[in-house]
C-alpha cells in the first residue's frame, strides 16, 4: 500500500515520534499529527485521512470521546481507528472497542505488532470494499 495518510493523535511528543517512526515503513505515506481530540477533529475537517491512531489519555479531549465523535460523523464513521494507550485492562479494551475503535494496542508498543494490526485492518477494509 502506497501513499497512505495516517493521523497520529497523541499528546506525548515521544510517542508521536515513535509511532511516526514505525509508520514510515509504509512507502510514501503521509503522517499528520494532532496533540489531542479537538486538534484531531480540526485536522479531519481539512485533511484526507486513511487511518487514525489515537491515545486515550489526552488533555482537552480524550481519545474515547474522539472515537465516539468520529463514528457519529457520516464522513468519518467508517474510518479505521486504532487506540494506542497505557490503559491495558480488559475493561478498558472492551470500552474502546465498544465505542467503535477497530483495534486496541497497549503501550509499550512493539513496532512489528503495530504494523501487523495496521496491515490486518487495511486488508479487512479492502475485502469489505471489494464485496
Amino acid at each position, binding site marked *: 500500500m502506497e501513499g497512505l495518510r495516517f493521523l497520529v493523535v497523541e499528546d*506525548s*511528543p*515521544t*510517542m508521536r*515520534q*515513535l509511532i511516526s*517512526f*514505525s509508520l514510515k515503513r509504509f512507502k510514501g505515506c503521509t503522517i499528520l499529527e494532532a496533540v489531542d481530540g479537538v486538534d484531531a477533529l480540526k485536522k479531519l475537517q481539512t485533511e484526507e485521512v486513511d487511518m487514525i491512531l489515537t491515545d486515550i489519555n489526552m488533555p482537552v479531549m480524550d481519545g474515547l470521546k474522539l472515537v465516539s465523535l468520529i463514528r457519529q460523523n457520516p464522513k468519518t464513521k467508517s474510518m479505521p481507528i486504532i487506540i494506542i494507550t*497505557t490503559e*491495558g*485492562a480488559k475493561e478498558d479494551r472492551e470500552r474502546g472497542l465498544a465505542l467503535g475503535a477497530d483495534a486496541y494496542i*497497549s*503501550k*509499550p508498543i*512493539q*513496532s*512489528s505488532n503495530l504494523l501487523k494490526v495496521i496491515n490486518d485492518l487495511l486488508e479487512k477494509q479492502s475485502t469489505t470494499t471489494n464485496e
Partner: protein
Amino acid sequence: MAEEHSDMFKKSQEFLQMLSKQKDFIQDLLKENERLRFQVASLESRSGNAQSAEAELDALRQRLAKIERERNELEARYQKVEEENKDFAQRYVEVEEQNNNLANLYVASYQLHSTLDFQEVIHIVMEIIINLVGAEIFAIMLMDEKTNELGVIASEGYEEDFVFPTIKIGDGIVGGVAKAGEPYYINQAGDDYQVDAAHPLSCIPLKIKENVIGVINIYKLLVQKDAFTAVDYELFSLLAAHAATAIFSSKLYSQSERKLNTIQGFLDLLTTPVTKS
C-alpha cells in the same frame, strides 16, 4: 482251393487291418512327436523370455534404487532449506526486535536532548518511563549537593499529597544504588509485593561519568506488562547516562539563565539614567 483263397483273403484282410492300425498308431506317434516338439520349442522360448524379464527387472530395480537415492537427497535438501528458512524467520524476528529497540532508544535519546528546559526534560524522562518502559508508579530523585540526600522531584502514580522521604547516600536500596552507581532490579515482583518508596522494583542511577546526580525508582509496571524486557535494560542504560546529562545540562542552563537575568537587571539598573523628579 476256394477255401485256401478264402483264408488267404481273410489273412490279407487281417493284415491290411493290422497295417491300417499300425498306420493310425504311427500317425498318432507323429502327432505326439509334433506336440512334444512344439512343447520343447515353447519351453525353450519361455526360458528365453524369463531371462529377458529378469534383466528388465534388474534394470527396474537399479532405476528404483537411483530414484530412491535422489528422493533421499531431495528430502535432505528440503530439510536443510526448511531449517535455513526457520533460521531466516528467526533472524527476521530478531532484526525486527532490534529495529524496534533501536527506534525506542533513538526516540528516547532524541527527545531527551531536544530541550534545555529543566521541567520539559523531567517531563520527557517521565514520558519515556511511562510509554517506553511501561511503568505505572515511579519517582525521579535528585541529589541535593548540600545535604547529600536524595529528594523526589517528580513522580507518577502516587497521590498528590504523598510526602516522599529523603534518602541519605548509602541508606537502603536506593541510597546504596546512589552510592555504588550500579542499578538494582527485581525482574518480577512476588505476589506479596507492596509499593514502598524504599523498596522499588528497579532503581537506576543517573550518572555523569562516575558522579551520581540522582536515581529513577520504578515501583510498579502497567497491568499489561509482566516483567522488564531486554529493551528495558537498554533504556535504563540510556536513561542512566543521557537523562542524567539532559537533567544536569538543563539545571545548569536554568541556573545560568536566572543569574543572567539577575545580572541583566543590575546592569539595567546601573545604566538607567537617574531622573530628578
